[in-house]
């Protein structure tokens, strides 16, 4: 490393020392301002230290550290398959164990809940808000001075009670502050979406009002409007229904498969483009398969742990 490289490291260390001293309240602020204003390199080094420092308070960090440091919690009671006892308060409060070697970590206590594939469940949150978890979903929350809610995977519908402070919702692709109202957040492999059915929210890319959807795909965020029909389709799962309106068969199967431990697959690839519509019960895939037989001459048979779809021979 050359002379300039060494100077760079020194600058970085100076910036770090200033930042931590300021954070701990031990810095001479006047001396700091003099140092920072003396050279744009100082200002830049300080800004880099501050940006890195900011990363260490990222709201997703507790989740990631838990996942890797601590064993998976097992707070789940027996799954209630499609219980219609909507809003019956399930007591799923699994405060994180912080015993043993990890005790010092002293995580802010977060409660967690998860659903299995095919399961749906409604939880009552400490402030009286409700969260309905769709299939294969994992969430966490902490309600103290602030209301914080994490979505780790899957889909959740929130009915948020009014309060002084907004509810902050965090996930890998999306962060937002939500007021009272009804919202739906769904995560996928490529990103996610946040839908406002009632009420308003604020996201990093702009405000979100009723009928708006924020979609994040491949790191790019967009806010758009949803028509009444699309809104209805997006929220049908809360009533145990799945809606297809002119959707291609491969996408429809993808939707249905979210709920099925045994996945439906196409034996013939050209079936994928078949367009279909209709409303089905999530927990009754057989009627879906029956409709394919009756309406489209597409037959199905069990193949190991899959359900194969193929064109019926006449």
């Amino acid at each position, binding site marked *: *490393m*050359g002379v*300039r*490289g060494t100077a*760079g490291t020194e600058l*970085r*260390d100076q910036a*770090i*020392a200033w*930042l*931590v*001293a*300021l*954070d*701990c*309240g*031990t810095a001479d*602020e006047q001396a*700091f301002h003099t140092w920072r204003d003396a*050279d*744009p*390199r100082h*200002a*830049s080094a*300080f*800004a*880099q*230290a*501050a*940006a*890195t*420092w*900011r*990363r*260490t*308070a*990222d709201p*997703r*960090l*507790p989740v*990631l*550290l838990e996942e*890797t*440091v601590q064993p998976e919690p097992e707070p789940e009671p027996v799954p209630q398959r499609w219980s219609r006892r909507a809003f019956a308060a399930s007591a799923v409060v699994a405060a994180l164990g912080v015993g043993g070697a990890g005790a*010092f*970590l*002293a*995580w*802010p206590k977060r409660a967690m809940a998860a659903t299995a594939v095919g399961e749906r469940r409604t939880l009552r949150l400490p402030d009286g808000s409700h969260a309905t978890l769709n299939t294969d979903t994992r969430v966490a929350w902490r309600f103290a001075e602030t209301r914080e809610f994490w979505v780790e995977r899957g889909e959740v519908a929130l009915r948020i009670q009014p309060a002084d402070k907004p509810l902050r919702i965090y996930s*890998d*692709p*999306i*962060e937002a502050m939500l007021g009272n109202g009804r919202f739906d957040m769904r995560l996928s492999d490529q990103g996610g979406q946040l839908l406002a059915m009632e009420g308003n929210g604020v*996201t*990093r*890319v702009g405000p979100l009002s009723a009928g708006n959807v924020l979609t*994040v795909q491949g*790191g*790019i*965020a967009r806010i758009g409007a949803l028509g009444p029909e699309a809104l209805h389709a997006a929220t049908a799962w809360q009533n145990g229904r799945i809606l297809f309106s002119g959707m291609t068969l491969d996408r429809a199967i993808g939707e249905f498969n979210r709920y099925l431990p045994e996945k439906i697959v196409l034996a013939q690839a050209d079936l994928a483009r078949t367009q279909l519509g209709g409303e089905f019960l999530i927990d009754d895939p057989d009627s879906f398969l029956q409709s394919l037989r009756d309406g489209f001459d597409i037959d199905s048979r069990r193949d190991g742990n899959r359900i194969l779809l193929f064109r019926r021979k006449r």
Partner: protein
Amino acid sequence: MAWLRDIDTWFADHVFAHDQQTRRYALRLVRNPEEAEELVQEAYARLFALENWAGIAHPHAFTLRIVRNLAIERFRRADVVRLDHGAMLHSLEIADQEPTPDIVAMDRSELNHVVKMLQEMPPRMREAMVLRRIEGLPPAQVAERMNISVSTVETHLIKALRLLMHKRTPPGETEARTEQAVRWECGERQERN
């Protein structure tokens, strides 16, 4: 946090968020990681000398352009001019018409890096970081909880932040670049023959 100015937040959101890409780009322009780091640092410093930083439409593309101009300046000043290198500098045009997509959250690889560093650092250092940054306890309470003085807490935090800021070479880049360089040199030789 009165010590944070608007430009610091702007820099974190729109420039430093792309730090990895910027460093990768610099590494393609020059011959070694130290030189690339110097270019990036020089480019960042120039941003902080600007009056009108808030008016920059695409801060990341703007930063890349500074890096590139600095590399070209260095290339012109070099004692031994490498023809292949000059051609390369011109081939690495920046698509500056394309706006950088909004960063909705910290890049996952950056986040994983922070997680990894937190897990690998010495336990007491990690404890101080977790209590201060993740639990958000005031420094005095961190000190109390850890049964140490505030100045020792500071030392832990300083060392932790040093670890986190230790520059990484983007994975695989050095090797890939060396390979490329070898290929260009071969090409040059063939042309002369």
